[in-house]
Every structure is written in C-alpha cells, then in structure tokens.
C-alpha cells in the first residue's frame, strides 16, 4: 500500500470557505441550543458577520494566485466571483432576515404540516418562522464559494451538491401558498438530481478520455483535461460526450434553455427572498463554473463547443424573451427575464479572451444587484393573503405608492438596458467582446431578443403608472429596515454601476486571468 501524503494546504487562501462553513455549522448549533425567541436575533448577525469576515479574507487574498489542496484554485476570477457571491448573499440575507413585513418573516415554522390544513392556516397566521433558513443559506453560500474555485470536476460536483441541497429545502419553506412552494421544491429537487447525474456521468467519460496520454496519469483536474484535449489518443467521442454532459449539469443551474423548465415554477413557488438569492447568487456560481470549465479545461476545444453553446445561447434568449411576453405573474415574468439574461451571459462566456471573461463577471454582479432589488419590491406589494404577484393587481400602483413604483420602474428600465443603468453597461460588456471575437450572429440575436423583452417590462410600467388603481390594487407595505436596506443597496448599485462603471470594470479586467 502506498503512503498517503497530505497535500500542502494554504489555509489563508481557503479562509473564506472555512469561515462560511464554520458559521453554518455554528448556526445549526444555535438552532439546537439557543432558546426559540433568541434564535433570530442571534442567527442573522452571525450569518452577516460570517459573510463580512469571509469578504475581508477575500480582500486580503486579493493578490493570491495559487492552487491549494490540489483542488481549489484561488485566482483572479475565483476571488472576484467569491466576492460577488458574498456581497450579493449579504443583501439576500437582509431580505431573508426581514421580520417586520409579516409576522415571522417569509418562512414557515414547520414545513412538514400538511398544506392547507387548519394547522397550516394557523401557523401561517401566527407561528414564527423557521430559524434553519440561516444555516441553510450559509451552507449554500459556502457551496457556491467552493463551486467557483473548484479546480477539478469532482470537487465541483461536491460543491454543486453542497449548495443545491440547501436550496431545495429553502424552496419548500414559503409561509404562504404552501402547495406551490412544495411543488416547486419537489420539481427543483428531481430535475436537479437528474442534472447532477448528467454531470457525474460526463465526469466519468472525461476521466476515461484523459487516460490516453501515455505516461501522464488520468484525472479530472482541469490542467489534465486541458492537456488531454491537446494530445489524448482516446476517441474524441469521449471528450465530446463528456463535455456535453458536464455542460448540461451546469447549464441546468444557470437556467439556460432547454434546461430551463424548472425556473418559472421554482421562482414562483419559492419564498421571494430565496428566489432573489437564487436569481443573484446561483447565477454567479453557475456561470463562474461555466467560465472556468470552458476557459480552463476545454479551451483547446473552443472550435468544437462554440457552435453548440452558441445555439443554446440563442435558444435561451429566445425562450426567455418570447415567453416573458405572455406572463401574468410578476415572479414568473422575472423568472423568464432571468432565463433571457442567462442567454446574454452565455454570449459573454463564448466571447474569447479576457474581455469576454471580465464582461461576463461584470454582468453577473450588475444583474445580481438589480434582480435582488426587484424581488425586494415584490415582497412589499401585498394584501391580506401575502404577496400579490398577479400583474393585474399591480395596476395603478404608481398612484398608491409612487416611491416604490418609481424604484421598480427604474429596475425594469435597467433590465431593458436603458443607458445610465447597469443593465446597459453590462449588455455592452458582453456584446462588445463577442463582436470583437467575430460572433456577430450572437450579438444580433441578443439585440433582437432585447427588443422583444422590452415589451413585457414596459407592460409592467404601463400597469403601474398609466392604469387607474382598482378595488383590488394592493397597498405597499412599509418595509422594515432590512428590506429597505436591501432595496436601497440594489437600486443604488444599479445606478452607480450604470453611471460610473469604471472601477468595477477595472477590477474585473484585473481579475480576468485563470491559473491552470
């Protein structure tokens, strides 16, 4: 038997991951030992502090470029994306922690009670919310941090599971519309399990592919795959099949068509703060992994995957834009909009070179802030039965509460890509490099779908401002401090990144270099 030697570990480099994971475990302990009424006041600061500490460590690591442990690559894109995930998850945590809008927050106390039973109705009215959401969110964040830094497919797979499982659970915890929430969680879990299986199978095929390199050992770390793409003697079918299967697993998380079908149902059913968290942070994680896999491992096969992924991108943009037009529920509309945005992000992933990389990373951050602000507004528009998400209910909202209607209008204009919002700058950031790289048809598809997509956004604006308020127009709840803060951060970031994008673009450009 060979001696097992522990690889060297750079603890400082992986400190953000360790801090977040430690905090999550601590959160579980808090849930077990702290009295019920103290849990919320303890959990939220704990989670936020952990995120802050992890963010500090990311900043400390800013100039680090190492592969530690053999499996974790700490480089520019990792640090940038980790920072993005942490900042966005902090904003999402503010939404999760809101207790002022509804007694006990957006989460149910006991998810296992039969939906719509008298017990369920009673707990929807009175019971406090589950405190488990904080460790669950923290675990998910930890998984995402590993996901974007994983340097081999196996680690990536484990990270995928680590951040997916808490999300499946979180989706099922909505206080209102329990059946919808449970259905969403079930769908997400089943389809997510399939996607994971695809990923795993692809991983196995790629392992087989790397075996054909003479004296070099087979493996699934990215440098080995990269070398194998260049000079493996195995059949290319293994490579293409493996690449396709791994891509399916990732594209599922990224909500790209035709692997998007779960998105509208899950976005609609999940508690709105969690929807915001998924739309912002899961997107960053999924695209971070896509960027790493395609820029580092499969770089040599660019000519082979570009047409296929390009077709996926066009399809995603089309599906998202066209189906968004027909939606009547604000959360589903935002879900289709997020699908279309996944298409634009894929355009950025396919743009060769560091410009495409930095543009995509900028897009992820900008979109994350805007979408979080959008869902923050959704949590506020409510009536006696919880959130009023049907679009017809938003008619005349501009009269009832001009401030929130103005903010939401601004957010929608950002989604539509009107200049002076981050939406415009980020579209430019991905289309520019794509055009430089000669992918004219992707840019044209992007521009055409943007036109289609403008229509549903505009319809909401018309609803809010130009329609008269009706009997059923809900009032906007005055938000607590946490939601206000999240909304303010999201809107201000959307404005600032639209007016002075220079610093973040600089940061993204400086970070756009993978280690291999």
């Amino acid at each position, binding site marked *: 038997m060979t001696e097992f030697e522990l690889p060297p570990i750079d603890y400082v480099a992986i400190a953000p991951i360790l801090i977040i994971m430690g905090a999550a475990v601590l959160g579980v302990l808090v849930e077990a030992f702290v009295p019920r009424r103290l849990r919320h006041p303890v959990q939220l600061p704990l989670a936020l502090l952990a995120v802050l500490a992890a963010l500090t460590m990311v900043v400390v690591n800013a100039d680090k470029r190492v592969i530690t442990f053999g499996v974790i690559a700490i480089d520019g894109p990792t640090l940038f994306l980790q920072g993005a995930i942490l900042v966005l998850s902090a904003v999402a945590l503010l939404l999760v922690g809101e207790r002022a809008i509804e007694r006990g927050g957006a989460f149910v106390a006991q998810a296992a009670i039969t939906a719509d039973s008298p017990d369920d109705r009673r707990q929807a009215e009175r019971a406090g919310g589950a405190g488990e959401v904080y460790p669950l969110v923290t675990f998910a964040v930890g998984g995402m941090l590993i996901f974007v830094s994983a340097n081999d497919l196996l680690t990536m797979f484990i990270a995928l599971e680590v951040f997916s499982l808490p999300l499946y659970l979180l989706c099922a915890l909505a206080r209102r519309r329990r059946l919808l929430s449970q259905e969403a969680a079930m769908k997400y879990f089943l389809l997510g399990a399939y996607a994971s299986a695809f990923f795993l199978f692809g991983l196995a095929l790629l392992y087989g592919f790397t075996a054909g390199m003479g004296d070099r050992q087979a493996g699934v770390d990215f440098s080995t795959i990269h070398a194998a793409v260049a000079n493996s003697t195995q059949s290319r079918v293994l490579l293409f099949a493996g690449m396709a299967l791994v891509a399916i697993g990732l594209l599922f998380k990224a909500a790209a068509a035709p692997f998007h079908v779960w998105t509208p149902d899950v976005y609609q059913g999940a508690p709105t703060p969690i929807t915001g968290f998924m739309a912002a942070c899961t997107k960053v994680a999924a695209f971070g992994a896509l960027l790493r896999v395609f820029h580092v491992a499969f770089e040599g096969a660019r000519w082979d995957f570009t047409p296929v992924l390009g077709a996926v991108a066009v399809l995603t943009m089309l599906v998202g834009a066209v189906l968004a037009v027909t939606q009547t529920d604000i959360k589903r509309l935002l879900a289709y909009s997020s699908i279309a945005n996944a298409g634009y992000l894929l355009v950025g992933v396919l743009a060769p070179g560091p410009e495409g990389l930095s543009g995509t990373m900028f897009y992820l951050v900008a979109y994350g802030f805007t979408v979080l602000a959008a869902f923050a507004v959704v949590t506020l528009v409510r009536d006696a039965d919880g959130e009023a998400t049907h679009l017809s209910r938003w008619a005349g909202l501009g009269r009832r509460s001009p401030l929130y209607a103005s903010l939401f209008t601004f957010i929608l204009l950002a989604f539509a890509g009107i200049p002076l919002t981050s939406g415009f700058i980020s579209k430019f950031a991905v289309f520019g490099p794509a055009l430089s790289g000669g992918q004219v048809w992707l840019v044209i598809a992007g*521009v*055409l779908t943007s036109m289609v997509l403008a229509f549903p956004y505009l319809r909401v604006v018309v609803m809010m401002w130009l329609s008269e308020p009706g009997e059923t127009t809900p009032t906007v709840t005055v938000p607590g401090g946490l939601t206000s803060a999240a909304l303010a951060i999201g809107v201000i970031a959307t404005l600032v990144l639209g007016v002075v994008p220079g610093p973040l673009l600089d940061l993204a450009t400086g970070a756009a270099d993978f280690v291999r």
Partner: protein
Amino acid sequence: MSDFPFLSVLTAAPLVGAVVVALLPRSRPTLAKQVALGWSLLVLALSVVMWVTWQVDGHRFQFRESYPWIPNWGVNFTFAADGIALVMLMLIAVLVPLVILASWHDAESSKRSVPTYFALLLVLECTMLGVFAAADVFLFYVFFEVMLVPMYFLIGSYGGHQRQYAAVKFFLYSLVGGLFMLAAVIGLWVLGGKTFDWVALSQVDISTGAERWLFLGFFVAFAIKAPFFPFHTWLPDAGGAAPAGAAALLVGVLDKVGTFGILRYCLPLFPEAAQWFAPWALALALVGIIYAALLAVGQNDLKRLVSYTSIAHFGFIGVGIFAFTTQAGTGAVLYMLNHGLATGLLFLVVGMLVARRGSALVSDFGGAGKLVPVLAGVFFFAGLASLALPGTAPFVSEFLVLIGTFTVNKPVAVIATLGIILAAAYVLWMVQRTTQGTLNPALTEIDGMKRDLNLREKVVVAPLIALIVLLGFYPKPVTDVINPAVQATMEDVGRTDPAPSVDTVQEASR
C-alpha cells in the same frame, strides 16, 4: 470666454432645475411653474451667450470639452458643437421656455402632480441638449435612449385620448431603433479601434460590407426617430395623444435628432455607404412627402393632422440631406430649424384651440374666427408658415432644398415640388374648416371659445412669429453658421457641388 465649458453646463443646467422643481411640494404648483420657467430662461440666456461667442470663421467643432468616463472602453464625456448642432441647441433653448409658458395649465387637467410635469419637461430639455452637444458616440447613444423616458411619461401620464397606447408605441418604436443602433455602435467601436471619439472614428477605414451594415444600423434608428416613411406610424399617435407642449417639443425638436444623426453620424462616418444607400433614402423621402401629405388632407383630428404635415416636411429634409449638395444640405438644416419654429407654433396654437373647445376634431370647429379672431389669425399665420409661404422662414429652406436638389437630380426635385401643392391643400382646407366659414352654433355654447388670446398666450406666440418673419427675410445669420458645417459634411461624403451653369439656375427659379 470661449474657454467656458458651455456645452456641459448647458446640458447639466436643466437637470439641476428638474431636481429642484421635482422636490417642490405638490401643493404649490404655481411656484413649480415659475421656477421651471425661470430656469429655462436661464438656459436660454446661456445659449444666447454661446451663440454670440461662436466664431463663424472658426474651427468646424467649437466649445470642445472632454472628460474621461469609462476609461476601459475609451468612453469620454466629449462635448463639441458644429454649426448644425449650435442651431439646434438654440432652437431647444428658445422653444422650451415657450412650451413651459404655453403648458401653464395643461398638467392641471390630468389629476397628476404638476411639479412632476415641469420637472419632466426640464429633464427632456437636458437630454435633448445633450444629444446635440455630444461628440462621443457612446455619449450620444446614452442621451438618445434616455430621451425616451421623460417623453414616455409626458405622453403616458399627461396625454389625452389613447395616451397609453401612444406612449407604449412611441417607446417601443424608438427602443427598437435604438437597439439596432446599439449593435451598430458596438460594431463601430470594435472596427474603429475601441474608441468612441467622433473625430477619431471619422478617420477610420472600414471595409465596404461592414460599413453598409453599420450605416443601416444607424440609419434605421434615425429613420424611425425622424420619422421617415415607412417607420412613421408612431408619430401621429404620439403627436395626437401628447399634451400640446410636449407634442411641440416632440415634433419640433425630438424628431430632428433623426435628421441630425444622419448628418452627423451616417454621412461622415460611412461616406461610401451613404452614397450607396442615397437613392433608397431619397425614394423613402419622396414617398413620405406625398403619402403623408395625402393623409394629412384626410385627417379630422387637428393634432394628428399637424403630425402628418411634419412627416411630409421630414421628407423634404431627407431629400435635402441625400441630394449631397451644399445648397440642399444648408436648406435641410435650415428646414430643421424653421420647421421647429413653424410646427412648434402650429402645435402650440392648436393646443390653445383644443384647450378652449375641449376637442381636437376639425368637425367640432367651424367659423371659430368669429369668436376668437386673434387666435384664428395666429393659427392662419402658423398654417401659412408651415406651407412655406414666401416671406416666412420655411420658404427659404424649402426653396434651398429644391434648387439644391434640382442641380443634381431633376426628377426628385420635380416630384418633391408636388408636395408644396398638397401642403397648400391641407393647410388651407384645415384653416377653412376650423376658423373660417359659417359659425358652428355649438361653439357659442362653450365658455372657453369666448376668450381670445390672453397675455400669457400672446407672449408665447409673439417670439415665434417674430423669428419666423425675421428668418424669412434675413436668414443670413443662421446660414452663415450652418454653411461651413454642411460644406465640411459634404466633403466628408466626398461630393462636391456641380458648377452652376446659367441654364439650370434660370430653370430652377422660374
């Protein structure tokens, strides 16, 4: 004095004013109106100083300023004005205070916040000034798109019948055009060496195929904005639904962004493509002149009628631009100014009529001149100016366009001349049916129709009438400013004027 950052201050000033007005309490509408008017007069004063400082024989681009914005992409806040832009900036600065004064009571009927209406007008002024003052393609695009937002809310929130439909149609048409342009802007940036500076881009050599696509991207956006046939259908709806003041700005200034864009971007940046597409553009312009004029004759809604006359006039401007002679080009630019004055006046007067009668339908009027003689007189004058009667400013520009075109392309000039006849038809018939003839008995029942122009309204129309007459007899101060810029543009395209021969000149003036 010429070191003063005129253009950036001019652009930013209305925005500051808008913030101030928006922050005023809703309960004090009069104060908001006064502040807005004062602010716009301040902008006017600044632009007059700028006009005086302008050196007629100086550099093509003056008042140039540049500040870095997004260094990664080579985006700068670069402002610079040529003669064409200067004239348009003056037009905006003159029109906005008059529009504010004319819309004094417009916002009150809508149940919406009055300060917001005037704040939106000032935001609109800021974006309009910015779009003409920008000399950086990215900056131009930003203003071009942002301009939609205040106009959308002006139409949608404060408009009349079918305002929602009109506002959405306006927004979507413009946005579609804008997105085509965005693709072209990105393409230009990539092919032009990652810079957005107009001067640098105008010296870049682009392959013929790419140049034609880029031209098309820009041209579609501008043709929708102008609007040229067949992209025009949004204008009658928007013009018909918008409150009169906003409609005057929409048709008087906003649409000029299209023709200005063609002159500033399409022609100099893509000269070869411009020549290649010129026959098509001329054809569209001609169809627009005849088709829109015919539709105008058949309209029963005054505001829609005036909108259609504008589409016909934009046909003339298009002909003037794509004839590629200095005369026609100068005529086109002069037409942009004069059309802004004449149609702006016409829209404002129509607004006054509509406000009194409570209806924009021609058939609801009839013999109104007997009740409100002064208003009817001004209406008649505005109509005559818009059909380009000699002695009014539009005549000079229309004439320049036609003779400039005749020297190079006789058939086009001849067909365009038909538009003048149709113009006489729609204007005179409109005047006849509304203010002349037997008095419509229903009008005497309406209190509003018993009030002729009050002092405020006289102050609104007087400067416009004075300018139209003045420029009709003595356009030289303006043509002196326009001419060098147009000449430079034609040189960019690579066309020189044909040497005048005695025959053609005589023929044209006959």
